[in-house]
């Protein structure tokens, strides 16, 4: 799932026009390792720019996908997701008025999500320089998310003037992991445990993520 976001980040950064956006990853994990995930990409804060951008064919030599191309790509992703063993209840939406896209599914175990990520990387021929995966050990009750930093987006960002880079300060990546069991501890420095101890949230600025100042890796121990 994360590859999709990185791809999107690279695309957005390269276009360097859509400086405000939110990416939310919301995972709901049951004790037996099954659960659901919902990914949301919200560009509505930049909808005026995105709407203008979509009218163009190319920006700085980078092709701007049309609505139908985005729809086709998402359909491909959904198709792949549906074919992935252990994945069910795949749902998606695309709102071209507010530029919000969502994709959600249920999984029997987090390994299915990893399999899907790999399929997606192959399908889009994405360079797997950054790799994100989940793991959950029902016995030890440890949920982990591993994340390797990729400098692809940073290279794109470096092409911009510093004052322009600042415009990305209003772009965020949010990860929320919810559990049936209480969280004992989590080891990401920006991660926070909810009041009811059932969730961990990491909200990081895209600039920090792109520059490698923060990591999305986390190991969460449950009670």
């Amino acid at each position, binding site marked *: 799932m994360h590859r999709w976001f990185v791809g999107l980040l690279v695309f957005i950064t390269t276009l*360097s*026009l859509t*400086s405000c956006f*939110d990416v*939310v990853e919301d995972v709901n994990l049951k004790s037996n390792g099954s659960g659901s995930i919902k990914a949301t990409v*919200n560009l*509505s*804060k930049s*909808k*005026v*720019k995105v*709407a*203008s951008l979509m009218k163009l064919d190319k920006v*700085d030599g980078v092709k701007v996908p049309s609505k139908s191309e985005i729809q086709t790509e998402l359909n491909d992703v959904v198709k792949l997701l549906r074919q992935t063993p252990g994945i069910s209840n795949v749902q998606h939406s695309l709102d*071209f*008025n*507010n*530029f*919000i896209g969502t994709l959600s599914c249920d999984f029997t175990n987090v390994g299915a999500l990893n399999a899907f990520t790999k399929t997606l990387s192959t399908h889009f021929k994405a360079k797997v320089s950054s790799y994100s995966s989940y793991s959950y050990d029902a016995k030890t009750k440890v949920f982990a998310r591993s994340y390797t930093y990729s400098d692809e987006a940073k290279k794109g960002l470096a*092409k*911009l*003037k510093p004052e*322009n*880079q600042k*415009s990305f300060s209003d772009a965020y990546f*949010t990860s*929320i992991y*919810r559990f049936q069991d209480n969280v004992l501890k989590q080891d990401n420095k920006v991660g926070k445990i*909810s*009041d*009811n101890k*059932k*969730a961990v*949230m990491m909200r990081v600025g895209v600039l920090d993520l792109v520059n490698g100042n923060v990591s999305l890796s986390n190991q969460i121990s449950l009670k």
Partner: protein
Amino acid sequence: MYLHKFAALALGILMTLTSNAQDLIRKVPHDAKVVVSFNNKAVFDHLNIADLNLTLTRLGLFDKMNSDSKLRPSKIEELGVDLKAKAYAYVRSTDSVQYIGALIPLSNKSQFESIIPKHKKVEIVNSLPTIYSADRSLRLSWDENTVYVLGGLAMDYYFRKEDVINRYGLIANAYDAYEAEYAEAVVDSAATTWDAYDFDAAADSAAADAARAATAVSEEEEEYELAAPPILAPVDTTDEDEYAIVDSILAQDEYSDDYYNRYDSITRHNDSIKNDLVKQWVNAEMELMLAGGYKSFDAKKLPKLSANTIAHIHATDVFSYYKYLYPEEALSELFGVKPKFDYGIDGIDASIVVDGNKLKFVGSATLDKEMASYYKEIYNKKLNPKFYPFLDKDVLGFFSFNVNTEAYLKNLPKIMESYYGSFMPRYSNMVSLGAMLFDIALDQKAIAKVIKGDNLFVLNGVTKVDVTYTDYEYDDDYNYTEVEKTKTETIPQFLWMFSSDDTRIFEKIIQIGVQENELVDHDGIYEVKENKGSGITVYLLIKQGMVFIGNDMAKMEMIKSNHYSGKGHAPYVAMAKKNNLSLLFNTKRIPVLLEELDIPVERSIEETVAELQQYGDFYMTSTGVKGNKVTGEIAVEFPNRNGNALAFLFDVLDRWSLKLKE
């Protein structure tokens, strides 16, 4: 390598640009369709020769020459060409060949001869020293005062005519010619070599297909351009590598590049005959020109070049040229129609003028009498003076286009009938009928009242608008809810206006719009309901015979309450007033605009964008029809730091050459 190519190109341009052509126009044949005059004096008066030499030296132009030159020129003045006289280039077309010639004045023959590369063989042809291009389709001869350049391009269609093919021994069609041989070869190959390979089923099937193809070809030669290669029957490749099989088939002799070799040799045969002919024709044409065998081009057809005009192009009888490129018979074969290429344009003239730091392209098209009268009526319309105050000095750009709606509607059917009907003779009656119905059906006067034909579109700076967006709010347990928030966004502001003496139709549309809930009435200013999420809301206002459409509510309110206090910028007003079409872009405002719109600029183009601030306006204008000419002008105002536009452009080249050197 690249540098040398550039140096050669620069030399070519300079040689064309630099020459003493006091009377060289006399050497241009009277029937040249295109004549380009280069005013060398004007070019070099606008440039600092010392700087120019420095740039050219840095670009390696003289090094290249020095490598095999006796006199070793190190300055542009030492190339032997006259930098103070005019040079000419021209195009003369016949049905069989298109000649492209140039006449370059010389100031010093010996100097010029010194730059001829040593490896070039100088021959004496028509008593003149002469060199040829490798394929001899380009000839360059010179005397004491002039370099004569002439090249020829064979007209493809001419060499496809049957009588021409027979006359010169060309091969009619490379594909046709190969068919018979190829078909035979395929049969042979199928019968013999294929069996040697160990997949009989495939081979048999392929052989059968090939034989069928061969038979079909021999029987229906004129219908087939080329015998299809044998089709491979499905081969069971489960145990074998498919690619290996394909490779092994391709490795067989009959699958070699034989066909292409043969095709290539036919093409070469034809090309060599054509080249021979072109070579002979070029020689004959130059001989005729040198001997004064052609009447001179009428110099009166060319304007006197001012001290600031660096080049001029004159094209006459423009569409007759198409006769050769796309002869009627060819089009008739293809489309079943014989169009007459006549759009009422007799000729085209254009000049490049250096006007201080402005570089202008000034052009005109000479219309035939009929077309001129139509367009004169159509362009008989001026912009409503009430729009002038909107041409503020800070506008980002504007576009004004004025036509007389009544004349346009009245003349359009005639234009269609006269000029476009001819292109489709089969349908000319239909076009006439359509034109007549158009004429009857439309009440031109009534329409002209509704839309008078004057238009002004102004792109003002930016305006701030409130835009809603979706955000998320999280509770203590990180459950989130979607919330709608509002932010202020900066968007470009536009205003489009046109005159209307009869606004009833717009009022009716507004009435329906409001009823259908598509328009919101803000006390006489109508908001077009925006549901596409673009954040750009459009407003409509009708006031005193003027219709305003824009996206800035505040401005609309000011217009409505007569509080709009804008003042027209005199040069912009003059431009809009004088011209039927004017488009202007205030280039220097781009960097500010990019900043205001928060559009990030990549470092690589940062310098270029910043430099735009020093540019003046870019504009395009047309005064409509004057006499029988429709005229237009395009101008770019460069930064005023090198004295004039040409010097600025050379400075850009110079800086580029410095970078190249680094």
